[in-house]
């Protein structure tokens, strides 16, 4: 494996962090790889435009940023909705890979810190994408199902990280606590702290850690 260099792809996508296998495969494999790479670079261009402007980019902007023609974009994606869905899947795959469950057996404060650090990293990286996804979900059942899936994963993760504390609560209090935790650590909660109140990443994490600690019931003794 090697990292793509300036000579391998358009300069606009040089920070994409994309890697490809280098093999002496038959010509058809080469074409498929190039097509896959183009597809990846278009998705990366879409995501980087979202990060830059928070506006849903046009096909012309995406093509320009990726270094391809508009026609190339629509050769790989029948319409912009397909591109949005592909970008969403790509973002979910990347964020899931970056959010491995850690410190499940740690003490209370270790688990809270671990959860908050992971969640903060995800929010910091994917907030513009999340906003675009929410803004467009009304147009597509597929986008709606992905938003729902993402929320289920966030919910499930909270359940796993705070299982010892939550196990001490009867229903419906257990579920109520999870719903409150989910609201407090939502993307827009992070966005407000960073954008509206100008908190640093560390300060924003502190708010979440303190809040989660207060919301959770006492940790049962081992």
């Amino acid at each position, binding site marked *: 494996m090697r990292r793509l260099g300036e000579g391998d792809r358009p300069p606009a996508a040089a920070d994409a962090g994309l890697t490809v296998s280098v093999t002496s495969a038959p010509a058809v494999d080469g074409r498929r790889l190039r097509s896959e790479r183009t597809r990846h670079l278009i998705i990366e261009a879409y995501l980087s435009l979202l990060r830059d402007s928070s506006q849903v980019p046009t096909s012309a902007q995406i093509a320009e940023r990726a270094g391809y023609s508009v026609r190339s974009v629509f050769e790989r994606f029948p319409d912009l909705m397909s591109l949005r869905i592909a970008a969403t899947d790509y973002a979910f795959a990347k964020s899931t890979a970056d959010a491995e469950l850690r410190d499940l057996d740690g003490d209370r404060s270790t688990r809270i810190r671990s959860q908050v650090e992971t969640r903060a990293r995800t929010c910091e990286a994917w907030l513009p994408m999340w906003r675009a996804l929410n803004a467009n979900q009304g147009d597509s059942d597929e986008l709606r199902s992905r938003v729902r899936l993402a*929320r289920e994963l966030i919910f499930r993760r909270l359940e796993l990280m705070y299982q010892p504390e939550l196990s001490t609560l009867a229903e419906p209090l257990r579920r109520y606590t999870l719903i409150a935790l989910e609201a407090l650590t939502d993307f827009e909660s992070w966005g407000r702290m960073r954008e509206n109140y100008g908190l640093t990443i560390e300060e924003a994490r502190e708010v979440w850690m303190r809040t989660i600690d207060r919301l959770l019931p006492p940790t049962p003794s081992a």
Partner: protein
Amino acid sequence: MTDAVQSGDGGAPARGEGRDARVDGRRLRSERTRRLIIEAYIALVRETGHMPTAAQIAERAGYSVRSIFERFPDLTALRVAVTDYAIAEARANAALRDLDADRLTRIKSQVNQRGSGCERWLPLWRVLSADLSGAPDLQQRIGMIRQLIVMRMEMMFRPELSLVSDAVRKKIMLALEALLDFESWARMRELYGLSFEEACAVWVKAIDRLLPQTPA
């Protein structure tokens, strides 16, 4: 504000003896037209959850598209006027109650008021705050709504917040704001299928945990 929107300019105009009375009558009719356009916008948003077009607003209000643009230079100006109307109505219906009551009563009072507000204004909030680019007046008003929500919580929970340092108070307020956000309410109602009472119970429990002890 009512959801039913009257149509046309019907109704007897105010009649006066002189020129001033005619001017007043015209101004009153113009004001009423403006209000009906705003109410048509709000009614359409509540029904569809989408930003209405000028043609839809005109049809619902019973006026021509031209009448709309005689009163509002563009749809962004109309959105700003709708926001001002909503803020005025929400403020009128959100009188501070139970300020001197015990902790639980104050929490429940705040949650009930906020839950009712979310229930009533969520579709409009979503439409108005969806795209603020190029609309500084709207951005300013959205910011003002957020400030009003925070100020209200600060007043309702003043006894508890008075016990902690500024730094801690700020953290608590950030958490309360996130918890009582419009979309937090929407998720409880739409995604998790909670009833109004259940959603209120989630907020009551969480606020009770987040607030410091009440001073004796």
